[in-house]
C-alpha cells in the first residue's frame, strides 16, 4: 500500500506552476459560479492544490492534515447544500418558493461581471507578486497567496449569500495559511487556524440553513 509520502511524491510535479494555475482556475470558478455542486467540487480541488504547495513549505503530514480539514469543510458544505436543495424543492412543490431556475448555458451578466472582476484581480495579484514578494516563500507560492487572497476578497465582496461569503473567507484564509506556514511552522498555530476554518464553515452552513428555513416559511431574505 503506497504511503502518504509515496502518493505525494507521485504528484509532486504538480506542486509548482501547475498548482498555481490550478488555484487560479479553481478560485476563478468560485468567483463566477453560483452552482453549489460545482463550487464544492472546485473547493475540493482548490484544497488539493493548496496542499501540494504546502508540501514545499512544511512536513507532508501537516500538509495532509490541513488538506483533511479542508475536505471535511467541503463535506460540510456538500451536506448543507444538499439538504438546502431538498428543502427548496419541497417548497417549490408546495408552491411557496419561487420556481427553479432553468439551467442556462449562456453566461449571465452577473457572471460576466464576476469574470471580468476576477481577471482584474488576478492581474493585480500577478503585479503584486512581482513588486511585493512575500518573505520566506518562493515566487510561485507568493503568486498563489495573492491570487487566493485577492479572489477570496472579491468573492466576499460580490455577494451577501452565506455560502459565497463562506467560500470567500476560506479561500482568503487558504491564501494566508499558505504564506504563514513559512513564517510560523508551529503546530499549535496550524491547529488553531484549522479550527478557525472549520468554524467558519460551520457558521456559514448554519446561516445557509437559516436562509433556506426562512425562505421556506415565506419570508424574503
Amino acid at each position: 500500500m503506497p504511503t502518504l509520502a509515496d502518493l505525494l511524491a507521485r504528484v509532486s510535479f504538480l506542486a509548482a506552476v501547475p498548482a498555481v494555475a490550478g488555484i487560479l482556475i479553481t478560485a476563478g470558478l468560485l468567483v463566477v459560479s453560483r452552482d453549489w455542486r460545482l463550487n464544492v467540487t472546485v473547493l475540493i480541488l482548490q484544497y488539493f492544490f493548496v496542499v501540494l504547495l504546502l508540501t514545499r513549505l512544511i512536513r507532508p503530514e501537516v500538509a495532509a492534515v490541513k488538506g483533511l480539514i479542508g475536505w471535511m469543510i467541503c463535506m460540510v458544505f456538500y451536506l448543507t447544500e444538499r439538504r438546502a436543495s431538498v428543502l427548496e424543492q419541497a417548497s417549490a412543490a408546495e408552491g411557496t418558493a419561487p420556481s427553479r431556475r432553468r439551467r442556462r448555458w449562456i453566461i449571465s451578466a452577473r457572471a460576466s461581471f464576476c469574470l471580468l472582476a476576477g481577471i482584474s484581480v488576478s492581474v493585480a495579484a500577478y503585479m503584486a507578486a512581482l513588486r511585493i514578494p512575500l518573505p520566506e516563500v518562493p515566487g510561485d507560492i507568493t503568486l498563489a497567496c495573492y491570487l487566493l487572497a485577492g479572489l477570496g476578497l472579491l468573492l466576499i465582496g460580490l455577494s451577501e449569500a452565506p455560502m459565497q461569503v463562506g467560500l470567500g473567507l476560506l479561500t482568503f484564509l487558504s491564501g494566508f495559511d499558505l504564506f504563514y506556514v513559512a513564517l510560523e511552522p508551529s503546530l499549535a498555530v496550524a491547529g488553531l487556524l484549522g479550527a478557525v476554518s472549520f468554524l467558519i464553515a460551520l457558521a456559514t452552513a448554519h446561516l445557509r440553513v437559516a436562509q433556506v428555513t426562512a425562505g421556506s416559511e415565506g419570508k424574503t431574505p
Partner: protein
Amino acid sequence: MIAGPLLLLILPLVMAGVVYILLRWASLSALLAVGTALALGIAVVTLPLDQPVQPFLFWGEERQIAMGETVTFLGRELVLEQADRMAMAYLFFTAAGLFCLAWRSAPHSLLFPMGLGLLSLLSGALLIRPLIYAALLVEIAAALSVFALQAEGQPPTLGGLRYLTFTTLALPGVLVTNWLLERYALMPDEIGLLSMSATLLAISFALLLGVVPFHTWVPAVASDSVPLVGTFVLTVGNGAVWFLLLDFLETYPWLSTHPHFGSLFSTAGLVMVVVGGLLAPAQRRLGPVMGYGALVDSGGALIALGMHSRLGLTLALLSLLVRPFGLALMAIGLSGLRARSGDDDSFDALRGLGWKAPWSTAALIFGGLSVAGLPVSAGFVWRWALYRALAPASPDSALLLFLAGLGVVVGVWRALSVLLVRPRSPEGGGNPQSTSEGWLTAAVVAVAIMACVWVGLFPQILAPLAARLAETYTFLVP
C-alpha cells in the same frame, strides 16, 4: 490545586454545555449562566494572585485555587496578571448583566451557551502569551458568535456574517506582526520592520474596532441580529479587543511612542464620530441608530486614547465600563418593540407601539440617552469628563463629539415620535403579538434603568475602577 486561568477557561465551557442541554428551561439556563459569570467575576476580583486559597471550607486542600499560577497550554503560557483581573471582571460582570436581561428579552436564544463559550475564549485571549494567539482565539469567538447572533426562524444575519468577515480579515495583520517583531529582535537595525508591524497592527485593530471605513459591521450587528447578542458582541467582544489593544501597547511600548500615535487615534476616532453622528439621525430603523450610537461611543474612546496621557486612558476605560448600560437598555427596548411589530424595527412598523410597550420604550429612551452621552445616564458621566478634558486642548474635537451625541439622540427622538403616535382605534394599526409586557419584564427593565441612572448620578461607583485600571498600564506617562 486548581490553576486560576484553567478555571476561567474550563468552567464557562463546561457550563456552556450544561446550559445548552437545559436551554428549553429558560429560567434555569439563565440562572446557571448568570451564576457562572458572576461567580467567576467575583473570583477573579477577590481571590489573591500570590497565594492559593480554599474558597470553601468543605473542600480539601487539593481543591485550592491559585489564581496567579501560570498554566502551559499547547506550549503557550496562560497567566493572570494584575492588569488582566479587572479586564476579566468587566467581561464576566457585563456578561452576567446581559444574561440577566436576556432571561426576559431572549429567553430561548443561544446567548446563554454561546455567551459562556465566548467568555471562555475571550478570557483565553486575554490570558495567553504570546499575544498572537489571542487574535486566533478572538477569531474563533467571532465564528461562534454567529450562531448566537442568528435569530431562530429569521433570514441569515448580515451582522454576523460581516462581523465574521472583518474579524477574519484582521487576523493576518496580527499574526504577521508577531513574526516581524521576532525578526526585529534578531535584526535591530531593520527599522522598517517596526514601521511595517505598526501599520499592520493599525489596520488589524481598525478592522476589529470598526474604524471607518471598516465600520459597516457595527450597525449590521446592532440591526440585523438578536439585539442582546449584538450588545454582547459590541460590549464584551469589543471590550476584549480593547484590552487586547492595551496589552499590545503595554507589551510593545515603542508603539505608544510612535510620533503618529496620538494623531492616528484622534483622527480615527473623529472620523467615526462624524460618520456615526451624521448617519444615526438619518436612519429609518431603530437597529442602525443603536449601531451608529455605538460607533460614536467607540470613536470617543479612541479620541480619549489619542490624548496620549494617563487621563485619556482613564477616560477610554471609563467609556468601556459605562457602555454596556446604554447598549443593553437599547437592546431590550428594541427586543420588546420587535416582538410586537413582527420583528420589524422600521419606523413604519413601530407606529403607535409605544402605548402597548411602555417599558420597552422607556428602556429605549434611557439607553439612547446613555449611548448619546446625555444626562441623566451612565454615558453622560464619561462624556462630561471627556469634554472637560478635550475642550481646552482640542475644542473642535469636543464640538464634533458633542454634535454627534446630538445626532444620535435625534435618531432616538425620531423613533420616539413614531412610537408615541396615538392609535386611531383599538383595532387599528398592526397586529401585535402581545399587548402586555408582564410585571416581571417590567421589573427587570425598571431595575436596568435605575442602574443606568444610578451610575449617572453616582459615577464614583465606576470611575475609581477606571482610574485604578489605568494605573496598571505603564505605557503612557501620567
